[in-house]
């Protein structure tokens, strides 16, 4: 605990307030937190009051302005739980409906999908340029079950070196109404000469925040990327990122 002599006056006042309210044990940073809060709150109120007083064409800020400022702010920042009678009322309403019966044998009992967090929170971009390569293989990104839910990020994993095929990647069978597109790094596409099958890698995937939690179900099909070429370097990858965004 800092000695009272070296502590600024405001902090001394705060220590005294805490003592008056009966709080004897607290970490030293509590004083700073409380002071910060005080400054912020008072500044906000006084600024608001200044605005109100200029609006009312008064020359100085007076108590009414402050009162009005406090009133307007109190509902925004310091909300308190609803009053007891209101709670009793809604509780009465809610408790009247009987408990719903439980359907047997339904697997994991979860709410309808739009209330769950299990949907993919990204969408794959459609390919912009047709790339010719070896026939017949559809390349689609590899997706893992459930891994998308919690972290919004834009992973670009591995070396992107994918091709697609002449056929446009349309909607995979298992997903209705969902547009799936693969995004191809355009520079990559240009540099591909021959399809040399190498290790399967993962493609760029764009995460579209607007789609988080809004589309249907998990992706259940297994999609493995085939055909890859390994020309890209990490530098090129950065290029591709920008291209990807532009192409969108």
């Amino acid at each position, binding site marked *: 605990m800092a000695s009272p002599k070296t502590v600024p006056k405001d902090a001394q006042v705060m220590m005294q307030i805490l003592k008056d*309210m*009966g709080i004897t044990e607290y970490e030293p940073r509590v004083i700073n937190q409380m002071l910060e809060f005080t400054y912020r709150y008072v500044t906000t109120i006084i600024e608001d009051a200044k605005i109100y007083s200029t609006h009312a064409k008064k020359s100085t800020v007076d108590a009414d302005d402050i009162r009005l400022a406090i*009133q307007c702010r*109190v509902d925004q920042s*310091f*909300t*308190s*739980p*609803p*009053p*007891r*009678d*209101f*709670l*009793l009322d*809604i*509780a*009465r309403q*809610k*408790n009247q*409906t009987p*408990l*719903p*019966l*439980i359907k*047997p044998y339904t697997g*994991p*009992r*979860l*709410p*309808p999908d739009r*209330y*769950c*967090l*299990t949907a993919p929170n990204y969408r794959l971009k459609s390919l912009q340029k047709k790339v010719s390569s070896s026939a017949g293989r559809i390349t689609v990104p*590899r*997706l*893992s*079950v*459930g*891994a998308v*839910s*919690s*972290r919004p990020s834009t992973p670009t994993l591995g070396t992107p070196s994918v091709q697609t095929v002449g056929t446009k990647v349309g909607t995979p069978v298992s997903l209705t109404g969902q547009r799936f597109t693969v995004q191809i790094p355009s520079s990559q596409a240009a540099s591909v000469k021959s399809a040399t099958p190498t290790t399967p890698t993962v493609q760029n995937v764009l995460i579209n925040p607007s789609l988080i939690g809004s589309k249907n179900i*998990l*992706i*259940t*099909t*297994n*999609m*493995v990327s085939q055909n890859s070429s390994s020309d890209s370097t990490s530098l090129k990858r950065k290029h591709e990122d920008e291209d990807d965004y532009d192409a969108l």
Partner: protein
Amino acid sequence: MAAVQDGPMELDAEKETKPEILSDGTSNLSGNTASGTMSSSPLTAAPAGGAPKMEDQQTLIAVLQFLKRNKLMESVDILRREAGLGEDQEDSQALDGSGGVKGDGDGGDTNSLLSRVSMASAAAPQSTLTPMPAKSANDQPDVSVVLSAYSQQGDPSLYKVYYSDLKNFIESVLDCHRAELSQLFYPLFVHMYLELVYNNNENEAKAFFEKFSGDQECYYQDDLRVLCGLSKKEHLKGNEALLDFRTSRFVLRISRDSYQLLKRHLQERHNNQIWNIIQEHLYIDIFDGMPRSKSQIDSMSGSLAGEARREVNKVKVFYGLLKEPEIEVPLDDEDDEAENEEGKPKKKKTKKDSMGSKSKKQDPNAPQQNRIPLPELKDSDKLDKIMYMKESTKRIRLGPENLPSICFYTFLNAYQGLTAVDFTDDSSLLAGGFADSTVRVWSVTPKKLRKVKSAAELNLIDKESDDVLERIMDEKTASESKILYGHSGPVYGVSFSPDRNYLLSSSEDSTIRLWSLQTFTCLVGYKGHNYPVWDTQFSPFGYYFVSGGHDRVARLWATDHYQPLRIFAGHLADVTCTRFHPNSNYVATGSTDRTVRLWDVLNGNCVRIFTGHKGPIHSLAFSPNGKFLASGSTDGRVLLWDIGHGLMIGELKGHTDTIYALKFSRDGEILASGSMDNTVRLWDSLKAFDDVETDDFTATTGHIHLPDNSQELLLGTYHSKSTPVTHLHFTRRNLLLAAGAYNSQ
């Protein structure tokens, strides 16, 4: 000065007129005159004196609002014309009066008036009171007392005199009555202080406070400190607990003799101030019998709303356990097919499970099997049950001679951030909720945590193989612990589901998240509380879970509904602890208002209120047989309650700091409690409950004289160096596991 008797009579007359107005919609004129006569006294003054005075105008407006609410439009017009009031005046007045009130501000004045008029004990449902502090009754006879909304209660400087008078009187009565009547001091003190503050008599309020706050009981000191900080009317508006205090009635239990004494004394005196407050704000539950002693009163008092009314605790509670489904335990471990339900014999080799077959007829205290819908047992659940029964045969029987060993799991480097802990029932997994909003799951056994493989890999495995359930697990990312990210605030409650598939966590960000323990990802976020959720727990059968938070309600959810199924409202302050009864039909909630309430899941009613703690309650535990409940709070005491009778049956003193962990052993013989004072204490619960069985309950009055036998019941105290105990768990074989975060200071 009008005699006191006029007061109640006037109120009675008021009550009669109001029903007349209500029922008599058609005869507007008569209705009008009826209300007119009551308010005629101020009204007659009004036209004579020109513009009506402030108080009278408010009276008129209150009446107008009441009539409007009951759709007596013609009366409204007539009254308005006669009184000469403009419509905008009335509206602005209404706005003023209900300014800053959430919820229904409609007819707020009249509601408060109505509720003041009806002195009967059916006050609780009439909490259509808006949360404005109730208006004080005016004891001046010429103005119609009840209708005036903001009138002054007598002379503020005389409050001190009234209070001292009462104090002198109570000190002069017989000893046996004094203890009971002293219960009056605290609520009266608070109400009078709030009156003074509300009517802007700041100086008198401060003087009043200084003079009399020292007399109050020690366990009210925290509340008094909060009160001390409130010296202006504006301060009252934000303080929810106080507003609730004003609107809910403080319950006092007083014997008939003492009550008669008090009544006689107060009615003799002409200043019926205190009598008014008593009638308005206090509910006196009168019982016939011996007055209670000071220690009895002290043990039951302490909550924010006084004690519980007797009829509240009279509802029948089904505290028995549900019947276990009969499952045949195969002699041969590999032979899983031999299990059957309901005791149908299949193979002669199998041994019949004796647990369920004992009680063929229904236990009268147990609820029906289908009272609330419960999920049916799946095959995996049946396997679990078999494991459970096998383990329980190896269980150690505990007792005073045979204390359990304690295994303490210390969280290192948690930097005081560990806020919640839970173990699975078979003690294989441990989850910790932290202040940095993460939830971490550890495996307690050597078996590592594995998650299900990704869809790509799942396609490659052989689905027909026998060990497909192992093959779907990803070996590459197996680890001792997994971290779950998702919350945006400290995690205050965690709970495993009984089938170990799900984990629930509740947080300060006001959501409850359901995590899958097979993929270690978040499945659902349940939004409903708009304020921090302090605790959550899965039901012992899975599917349902309960949560309690800062919004003073507890909610019952089912995993497949995005909205709660039941809302348990009634507490006056935050709900800090929520626990299911072993039969899943009842939920116990402990709160900061120092009461424990028991709620019925079927219809959401509060079936028991237990008062007696002197601090917020942070831990609850049901005994395995379902009959008893133990609660621990910040005052360091553990209280034991008999659910069936609704009585306190034991008090365990010994801890010196908040008790955050309470657990009964698997057969209920030992109660373990862990607290912030770095100790785990073991108590002999069999003895504590036995003593009760032999006594005869004074069931009508509910007053138990508790023997002070905490020392005899204490079986052992175990100190950790500096690790407060956050959670306790008895394994299936009765080994005690404890968890806490090392506190280096």
